[in-house]
């Protein structure tokens, strides 16, 4: 059974109320959702909290997931909305900004220079651009898949990825061969 058909079988079982099937979906997709949220919001601890809330929301909404839809894209879409909601609460945004900078100083102290440059460049991107870059450049989503997950027009996603990629390459001191 392929990954897509296995997902479909698990979703069907979870829609029937099987917690075991949902648990397997969590195991299969936790890495993609957490990686996306880590890159989208920068704060790993908050990213993991958001990932938990994402799966909790997914459990409540699993009945609405259409047959054949990409589970990974659907989960990342829920995660992105959770991330935006967190950003919109002004107090948390300020706190996160401060926490983000503090966290970078500590966790990246011993990290390679390139990684530090990438993290800083990512932190400097607008939230939408960061999400598009996290999905398309880091997680190998197609532009169409990312557009579906993030609820953005395809052209917007392409533009965000292109601009974000240019900023990242600039930060890493790479020349942009594709442009």
């Amino acid at each position: 059974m392929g990954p897509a058909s296995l997902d479909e079988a698990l979703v069907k079982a979870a829609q029937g109320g099987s917690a075991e099937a949902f648990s397997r979906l969590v195991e299969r997709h936790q890495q993609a959702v957490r990686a996306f949220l880590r890159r989208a919001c920068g704060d790993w601890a908050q990213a993991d909290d958001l990932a938990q809330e994402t799966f909790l929301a997914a459990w409540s909404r699993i009945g609405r997931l259409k047959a054949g839809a990409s589970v990974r894209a659907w989960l990342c879409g829920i995660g992105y909305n959770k991330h935006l909601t967190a950003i919109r609460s002004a107090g948390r945004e300020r706190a996160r900004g401060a926490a983000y900078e503090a966290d970078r100083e500590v966790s990246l102290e011993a990290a390679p220079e390139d990684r530090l440059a990438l993290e800083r460049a990512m932190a400097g991107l607008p939230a939408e651009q960061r999400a598009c870059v996290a999905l398309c450049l880091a997680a190998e989503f197609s532009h169409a898949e990312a557009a579906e997950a993030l609820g953005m027009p395809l052209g917007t996603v392409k533009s965000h990825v292109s601009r974000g990629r240019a900023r990242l390459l600039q930060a890493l001191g790479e020349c942009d061969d594709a442009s």
Partner: protein
Amino acid sequence: MTQADERVKALFAMDEPPARDAAFATAVMARVMRRRFQEDVAMLCAVSLGGGVAFCAVWPTLQPALVAISQGLAPALGAIALAICLMVILGGRPSADLPLGS
């Protein structure tokens, strides 16, 4: 994909969470189960409350009928209750031929 893209991707891969993380999956499922339990309790409370209100509403009509029926059915209901009690008590005893000792 250009070499620069490969480099970006490799750098992103450095902060990838583990493919299997039992602690995370367990934490998620604990929250899911807690949510499910809360929903079940909320539904049971709502049904009980609704049932109680409905029962109170129909009680004035129901009471005379129940009194009339109970007078006729009391001996039969008593016998059934006794039989059920006996079945539960005797059914709960270990059978004499069970290998309890060596």
